[in-house]
């Protein structure tokens, strides 16, 4: 092998060592960050999941009470939600939609369906944010008991 071949061979070896070192450094630093970001991500997911379930339960309780009261079900639903409103940011646009009347109570034989589309809930932690959009349909019987929930 001539001198040029020696040089290329040596550079190749050095290059391999540098790449291996960089890869090791990446593994070590990445694993450390993953613990923290994984926990934060888990909290974000839990919060957005909780917000969605909260909104659904809120609609179930208020819808059930409004149907039991009889009369203007839509108006009663709006009044109940407004009374219980804690203006929590992460519960998204649910209360605003109720206030603006963007929902329907549709009677159908022995059941009444509460339909609300385009609900969004969100969760924030530091600079990370998750938003979840969903449509809600809750079917009540005449006594205001829940028969089915589509979410």
């Amino acid at each position, binding site marked *: 092998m001539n001198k040029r071949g020696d040089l290329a061979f040596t550079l190749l070896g050095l290059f391999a060592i540098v790449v291996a070192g960089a890869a090791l450094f990446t593994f070590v630093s990445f694993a450390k960050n993953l613990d923290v970001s*994984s*926990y934060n991500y*888990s*909290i974000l*997911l*839990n*919060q957005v*999941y*909780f917000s969605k*379930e*909260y909104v*659904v*339960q*809120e609609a179930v*309780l208020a819808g059930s009470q409004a149907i039991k009261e009889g009369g203007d079900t839509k108006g009663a639903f709006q009044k109940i939600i407004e009374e*219980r409103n*804690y*203006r*929590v*940011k*992460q519960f998204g646009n649910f209360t605003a939609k109720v206030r603006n009347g963007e929902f329907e109570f549709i009677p159908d034989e022995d059941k009444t369906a509460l339909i609300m589309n385009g609900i969004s809930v969100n969760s924030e932690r530091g600079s990370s944010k998750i938003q979840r959009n969903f449509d809600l349909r809750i079917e009540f019987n005449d006594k205001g008991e829940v028969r089915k929930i589509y979410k």
Partner: protein
Amino acid sequence: MNKNGQIGKIVTSFPVMILIFVVIILYLISSGIARTALLKEGIGIASSGVEIEPFLAKVISVKVEEVLSEVIVFDAFVLYKRGKVEREDLEKALLDKLNEKHSLNINGKFIPNCFVLVSGRDDSFIALEEFKDFFLEENEGGYSSVSKTYVVKSAIKKYDNYRGIGLVQETDVKIPEKEEALNIRYYFGRCL
């Protein structure tokens, strides 16, 4: 390099390539076996908390200003903070909810021996009596005879362990108009 040299180089590179492929295949097989074994032992369940129905969104029956009402657990904490729900009533309502089946419902399947841990930023932990050894350390806290729960007044190492592996659910919400901040952290699941 002449023709013979080039052919020689190509021929010698084959065993090296074959060796590299063999090493990669061995790595994939061994990591696959290791992963399967770890999953069988139940390691790596930190994300299971996401699948569990959030306890804070459950409905409980609690006295609100002396009137028994159906309230979402989260709302009950807000009302407690505003002085509309008594602490003992809240503890009792939470315990009644837990004792409905005294087990954890995961996708319709009831799993026994669960426990719950609920906390506010300034408030105490609430734990079931049978887990008192788990919570009571260094003579912290006291016993509530009404709800039969142990109340512990500071953070506990084992709680931090659950938090460390991402099993504690946490909600930290601000209620702007009332200038309130409500922080509730809890673990609701099987004892590990």
